[in-house]
Each structure stands twice: as C-alpha cells, then as structure tokens.
C-alpha cells in the first residue's frame, strides 16, 4: 500500500532506478568522505574540518538537476556533497583537506571547503558569508544576455540571508528574471546562534516580495528537494526567472573541528535529528520500494569505504607545494 504510493513518487519525477542509486551513492560518498576527514583531524593530520553531515539530501537532491561544466554552481563551504556529485573527487577533497599541492580547489592556499573547478563551473568560493549571491546573479545575467539556457545555483546557509548581499542579489534577479536558483540550506545553526535569532519570519516567503516563487521543502527528503530544484531549474532554463528554495535541514556536527557545540546545544536535540538522517531515510525508501537490499547496500558501502581510504592515503602521501609557490599567481599575465 505504502509501496504503491511512494513508488509513484519517484516515478512522477521521472527518476529511473539508476538515478535513485546514483543519488543514494552520492549521498553515501559524501558522508564517508566527511567521516574520514574527521578521523584525519583527530589523528592530528588535518588542521581543519568543515562538515556536510546531515545536509546530503539537500545538496544531492538539488545538484542532481545541474549539467556539470555547463551550468554554474556557487557552493558554500558545506557543499562537498554537491561538488563531489558534479565531478570533484574524494582524492581531490582529501588533498584539499591536507593542503597539498595537488589540491584541485586552490593548490593548498585555501582552507578545506572552499571549492573551485574551472572545468566544472564551480566558482571559487571564500569565507565571508553571502558574497557569492551577487556574483551568481551576474553569471546568470551573462547567460540571459547571450540567450543561452545555462542556469546558476547559488547556495548558502540560513545566516547567509541576513546580510545585504543576499537581498541585493534577490532584488536584482527578480528585476531581470535571471536564471538563478537560490538554495538556502537552513541547518538551524550559524556556529552557535540558532535560526530563531537569525531569521525573522520565513526565508522562503521573502521571495514573494522580490516577485518570484519561494519554496520551503523538507531538506532531509532527497526526493522533495530534487522535485523543488527540478521545477526551479526548468523554470530558469525556460527564461521564466529565479526561484528560492529553503531546504530545512540540520547540521549534525559541530560548526567545524574548532568548535565545541556542547556549549550551545543539547545532545537530545541532535539525537532527535539523527533519527531523521537523510541517508537513513532514503535508504528506507529504497528498501521499501525494492530498489535496494541489505546485501547490495553493504557491498556499495564497502566499495565506497575502500576507495575513500585509498583517496585519503594518496593525499597523505602527496607532497606540499614549495613554500615559494606562495608568491605565484597573484596576477594573471596580461
């Protein structure tokens, strides 16, 4: 009975069995890379970890609609799930985590989580929160000016909607019907400050004031996020303008490896959200629909863990850049 209903759900989204497995696999890869990063931190090998745990559904569900290397992504520092889905590799992420020369984001210049790939149109990101939104609007404007069907996805946490950049970009995108999707991953916490002290009213409803649709979705339900993003991406491609998606989710780790979240949130709260872990939820969906069984899951997980370990080992053994390389590439050659 439930099966019939839920099966219809992914079928109405035109998702094949292969798609569902790709989505599940991408979520699991993101989680395993993240977990491995914390181990490297605790071993004293990784100076800093910033985590995507808990936000895999929001990230994979949204980014599964993008065409890598054609559409543009402006990720924020938790979006490793997205960048891995679009083509960055676990090896690359570990090289970045350890600041090695082969780090694809920055060759050891930036902290982990500051993604960049020219080939994949993942625009280099920084630490100040919200600066990516006006940039994303500009990139979308270029697509519109040339009459191309590219779209831009710009991501951030709920606190990234507090500053002016987000509002300036929302306004500008609304004025010009730009092909941009604002994805707000509302994970409840901005370091220690809960969203009730960060966000007045509803983020999603603010879109209405700027003249375009805003949707609040269950950010731990990968199919719900996929559906909202699918509609938003199609709308943008048609030239109908921007969409705001607020994915309600939860940050399952501390802000970073330098943060102790016991100072500001209860363990019970985290435990309650663990029951809503997006990966477990999607697993359950796949089990119920006969799309995955325990053996297949175990095999997939073992395979992922093996290549994650291999990627991590590679990064550990990889060399640092020469110190003098800190002087290179300040200016592009005229």
């Amino acid at each position, binding site marked *: 009975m439930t099966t019939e209903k839920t099966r219809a759900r992914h079928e109405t989204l035109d998702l094949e069995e292969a798609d569902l497995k790709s989505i599940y696999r991408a979520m699991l890869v993101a989680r395993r890379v993240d977990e491995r990063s914390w181990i490297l931190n605790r071993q004293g090998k990784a100076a800093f970890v910033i985590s995507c745990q808990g936000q895999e559904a929001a990230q994979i569900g949204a980014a599964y609609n993008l065409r890598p290397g054609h559409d543009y992504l402006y990720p924020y520092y938790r979006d490793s799930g997205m960048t891995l889905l679009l083509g960055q590799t676990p090896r690359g992420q570990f090289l970045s985590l350890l600041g090695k020369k082969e780090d694809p984001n*920055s*060759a050891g210049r930036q902290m982990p989580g500051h993604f960049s*790939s020219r080939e994949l149109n993942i625009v280099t990101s*920084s630490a100040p929160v919200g600066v990516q939104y006006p940039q994303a609007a500009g*990139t979308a404007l270029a697509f519109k000016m040339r009459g191309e069907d590219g779209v831009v996805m710009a991501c951030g946490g709920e606190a990234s909607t507090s500053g002016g950049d987000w509002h*300036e970009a929302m306004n500008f995108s609304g004025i010009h019907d730009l092909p941009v999707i604002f994805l707000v991953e509302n994970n409840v916490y901005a370091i220690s400050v809960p969203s009730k002290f960060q966000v007045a009213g509803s983020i999603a409803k603010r879109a209405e004031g700027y003249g375009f649709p805003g949707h609040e979705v269950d950010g731990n339900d990968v199919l719900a996020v996929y559906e909202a993003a699918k509609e938003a991406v199609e709308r943008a491609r048609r030239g109908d303008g921007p969409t705001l998606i607020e994915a309600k989710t939860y940050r399952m780790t501390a802000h970073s490896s330098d943060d102790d979240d016991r100072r500001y949130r209860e363990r019970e709260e985290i435990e309650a959200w663990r029951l809503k872990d997006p990966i477990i939820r999607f697993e359950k969906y796949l089990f119920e629909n006969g799309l995955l069984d325990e053996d297949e899951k175990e095999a997939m997980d073992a395979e992922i863990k093996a290549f994650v370990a291999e990627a991590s080992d590679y990064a550990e053994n990889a060399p640092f850049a020469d110190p003098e390389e800190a002087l290179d590439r*300040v200016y*592009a050659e*005229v």
Partner: protein
Amino acid sequence: MAEKNLLQAIHDGLAEEMRSDESVMILGEDVGRAGGVFRVTQGLQEEFGPERVLDTPLAESLIVGSAIGLSVNGMRPVAEIQFADFIPPAFDQIVNEAAKFYYRSNGAWTVPITIRAPYGVVPGGALYHSQSIEAWFCNTPGLKVVAPTFPADAKAMLKSAIRDPNPVLFLEHKRTYRLIKEDVPEDGHEVPLNKARVHREGGDITVVSYGLMLYTALEVAGKLSEELGIETEVVEPRTLYPMDRETILNSVKKTGKLLVISEANITGSVSGEIAAIVSQEAFEWLDAPVIRLGAPDVPAAAFAKPMMDFFVPSAEKIEAAMLELARY
C-alpha cells in the same frame, strides 16, 4: 586627431572597446538613459542597448559582485561607482573577492573587470563627494589601481584596463574631467598599466603627483624654472598599485630630492609608500628629507569653500615645499 577633455576621452575609450568587443558592457547607477551623473556614458545606451549599458539598483556590492559573476561567464564588464566615496559597500567584493579569485584558485579563475570611480575634491562636494580613496585599495595584491590624469593617457589606460585579465580600479579625478583638452589619438595609442610618466625633466627636484595636484605641480614647476632657474622633474605614477618604482627611483637618484603631492589624507597614504620606497632604495642619493604634501588628517573636505580650499594643498604650499627642497 581630435582635442578632447578627460571625460570625452573616457567616453570614447568605452565606446571603442564596446564596438570592437561584444563582451564589453557597462553597469552602474544612472549610466543608461541619463548617461551617468558626469555624462561619461552619454549616448552609449542608445548605441548599445539597455543590457550592455545597464542601470543597476542602488547597491554597490551588487554592482561589483555581479560584475565579477559576469566576468567569470564570458563578459568584460566595466562597473561604475558613481562617486568613489560610495565604494565601501563594495569593498568586500573588490578586496576579498575580485582581487583574490586568481590567487585562491591557483590561477583557475580570472576576473577581468574594470571598476570606474570618480574621486577627489570638487566645489560643493563635501564629505561624501570628494574623497581620495586610493590608499584603501593600494594594499591589495591581485588588484590594480590606476589613476591617469591626462585625457590621452586615460583613454589608452582604460582600454588596457578593460583588456587586462585582472580586476582594475580606475580612478578619475572629477575636477579634471573638463579642465583641459589635448590631442587624443583615435586608436592604436597604448599605455600599459605598469609605467609611470615623466612630464618634464629636471635635475634639481623630483615631484611625484597625480590627479588635480599634478596640474598644480606642473604650474609651479614651470614658474620656478622661469623665475629662479630651478628645474623640477615631474613624475606621474599613473598606476598607483602595483607601482612603477624604477621611474621614480631613477628620477630621485638624479635629483636627490623628492616631494610627493596628493589630495589624500597624509597618514597611511600612497605618498607615504612612495616616500618609504625612496628612503629605502635611494637613501644614499638623497640630499634632503622626503616631503609629503596632502590633506590634513581630517575625515574629508568640508562643504564651505574656504574650508574646502584649505583642505587641498595650494600652489603656495607646493611652491614653499619645492623651495625648501631646493635650498638643500
């Protein structure tokens, strides 16, 4: 070759680049139908349409931020900040973003944008239409800061800025927009963004200056030559960051004396950096202390004309400083 003032030369530079390269566009406040508050972009929206000459909302961070986003997707935007005094909301986008994209991505992402901003004291301008803001940005590797003074240089350097793969802050002293006319080549005249210009040669004193103060310096230099036979070498950096140190050092090594003049607040100014370079690299050639003339360390020029005039280094003060150096 036609005679043009600074404003017309910049206008022509924009128009020519837009004609020759479809990716070049302009965005900013009132740049469209109004042609900009100083009329620099007059007629360009008519010629190139409302998208390539785009009136933006009044939001400087958006203007520069969206220019960055346009530039990473194939465009070469020229963003106009209506008055340099209004640039602080865009500071993050300029200093933390545009200037750092290339370095932080290890050379993967370039940001070919030009940010035009009129600066400098103007009658009636007061605190928020007068500031010389160059020092804020001349401590930012990855960014180029240029401040040409004469029309032909400005047109050529604007073209260089637009073609440059790096972000360029292009400063225009608004009181010099209509000050003089000179022959401005139609095309083909090139000025790179790393070369100072020697306006007059002399063996007695070196004066380094830019903007309106450069005109005053040249006048005083002419006067001292005529009346007292003191020969001043006047050097204009043209690019303030990264600066052409060689031309300045070569001049000081010849004269042994240096006066630096700008309209900016003295403490922490570009003039201070020039003085430091000379003190360190040409100490053994110096015959006198380096003198800096600039605005006093008060927030900005006042509205009332007597106070405004007092704020800007006058011809008399400049002459006195040059004579003091000449006496060594």
